[in-house]
């Protein structure tokens, strides 16, 4: 078991600074999710923790030990890659036991560990197959099995589910959470899928352009986004932003309201507009409205009929649901 802490870590590729200066503490036993748009440096950060990428500055500690200059295999980590990165020429059994065999562990120990991993991941029937003869989900399990037998203090996942179809992704999400509970290890999980981030994390770290925008529990990040970027990145459909008078009257230069907090009202209301499009989700309807000032907003409303297309509507929202930002920072 191990906590991970980064202090003023930097990463520069040639002249291109990918991570300017980043400090982060990942609590022992947590399921921490790094989330952010493509190219923001999530994989780079994870690879630095793994030791696959050198650091250009700062310190990395795992379990209280400075590992900045330690080789990957000595860091007490295991990593699962997006492409699975299985050894194609080895059977599932040999894939899982490769590290143990390199370390010349006794055969009985290897056998026991492979058996236990195979049991946890329901891989027993496939131990003698080659990776090419497995489905995507099974391959991902083998990759996880390879990680488990290392008994790592920290598991590192780089978008492990993004190559799977939606149904399997949902199932693997649950399996990973079960695994986390069962092993109790620290897990650091990279994704650009904010639904995955919300549902799996006990700590979310939202990254943007190599910086941490906000770190906290999923609900905290959702309820109290510290910057417009976080507000816009977490939550689906995307949050609505308003500028101008309505923001100034609240002491900021921008306010944001989540689609589910906007209401279509009979009379009064803060905004007026025309319904441009209705997206039926079954339980709810996403109502896209063009406001009189030309802004586009989205409202998540209880189910509404298609006859409302092009209708003129009034829209309102409670005061407590406004997120107010000034100069890119949350104002309370």
């Amino acid at each position: 078991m191990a906590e991970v802490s980064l202090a003023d870590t930097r990463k520069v590729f040639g002249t291109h600074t990918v991570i300017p200066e980043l400090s982060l503490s990942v609590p022992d036993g947590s399921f921490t999710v790094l989330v952010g748009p493509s190219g923001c440096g999530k994989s780079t950060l994870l690879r630095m923790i793994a030791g696959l990428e050198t650091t250009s500055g700062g310190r990395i500690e795992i379990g209280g030990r400075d590992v900045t200059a330690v080789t990957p295999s000595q860091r007490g980590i295991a990593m699962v890659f997006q492409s699975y990165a299985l050894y194609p020429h080895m059977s599932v059994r040999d894939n899982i036991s490769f590290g143990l065999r390199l370390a010349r562990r006794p055969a009985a120990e290897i056998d026991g560990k492979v058996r236990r991993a195979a049991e946890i991941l329901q891989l027993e029937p496939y131990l003698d197959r080659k990776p090419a003869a497995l489905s995507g989900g099974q391959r991902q399990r083998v990759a996880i099995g390879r990680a488990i037998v290392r008994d790592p203090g920290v598991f590192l996942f780089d978008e492990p589910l993004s190559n799977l179809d939606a149904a399997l992704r949902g199932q693997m999400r649950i399996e990973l959470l079960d695994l986390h509970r069962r092993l109790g290890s620290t897990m650091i999980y990279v994704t650009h899928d904010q639904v995955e981030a919300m549902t799996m994390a006990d700590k979310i770290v939202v990254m943007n352009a190599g910086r941490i925008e906000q770190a906290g529990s999923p609900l905290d990040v959702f309820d109290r986004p510290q910057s417009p970027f976080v507000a816009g990145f977490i939550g689906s459909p995307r949050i609505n932003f308003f500028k101008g008078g309505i923001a100034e009257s609240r002491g900021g230069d921008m306010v944001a309201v989540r689609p589910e907090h906007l209401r279509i009202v009979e009379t009064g209301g803060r905004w007026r507009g025309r319904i441009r499009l209705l997206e039926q989700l079954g339980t709810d309807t996403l109502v896209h409205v063009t406001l009189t000032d030309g802004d586009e907003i989205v409202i998540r409303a209880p189910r509404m009929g298609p006859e409302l297309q092009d209708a003129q509507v009034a829209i309102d929202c409670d005061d407590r649901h406004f997120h107010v930002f000034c100069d890119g920072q949350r104002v309370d």
Partner: protein
Amino acid sequence: MILSRREKFVCYAVTYLFALFLLAPIVWMLSTSFKGQLAIFQKPPSLFTEFTFQNYAAVLSDPQFLHAFWNSVLISSGTVVVSVALAVPAAYGLSHLTGGRRAGFLSWVLLVRAAPGMIYVLPYYLAYSQIGLIDTRIGLILINSVFTIPLAIWIVIPFFDAIPHEIEEAAIIDGATRFQTMTRIAIPLAAPGIASTAILIFIFAWNEFLFALTLTRFEARTAAVSILSYMAYEGTEWGKVAAAGALILLPVLCFSILIRKYLVQTTAGGVKG
């Protein structure tokens, strides 16, 4: 592309003509190797008037030819071992270099290969005379390797390049050293490419003529050169020349068939895990 009937006919005709052009000498050689001395000069020539193994019997009972043939086997195999042992790690290293250094190194490597062999003959002859490598198998293995190693590096590099970095990174996290990553992961995955390269090297060394002619006398003379001994002043023994040629062609033929198997495997197998 869809071809009309006429276009198709023209394509096939050209292909077959070219194949005939390539294969005719081989057919002539094979047919000659089974003929007696008289039938060879018969006019008009015919493909198979007479069928005899006497040329093969004569060549196979000629101790000089057998000695040369055995030399060829040893020298070619030795060249394969030396070249593969040196070129594979070199290719692995180069495959992990990027940018200018890699390109620079690779073009130097190619330059060695592209220079005409004659340039090497004189300096090597002088050097070999000094250090006693003239007319030795080792000497030929070494100079053959000078030419085959660059070729092997160039052929093997793409096979290493095709291995996803993440597979090697996974091995490194699993505790493999760079060397183990090469021997346990990269080489097995590039094996079809390395095998094809080994075969190409064998064929190159087997067919090599210039150095074998200039740097050997008798001890290390190869099969290809030994044919010359059937072309003596008192007249060329065409039957033996053809039979010896056919025997020399045999391993090349077998290996060419093998290499096709490997190359097909390579494209169909892929590395994706």
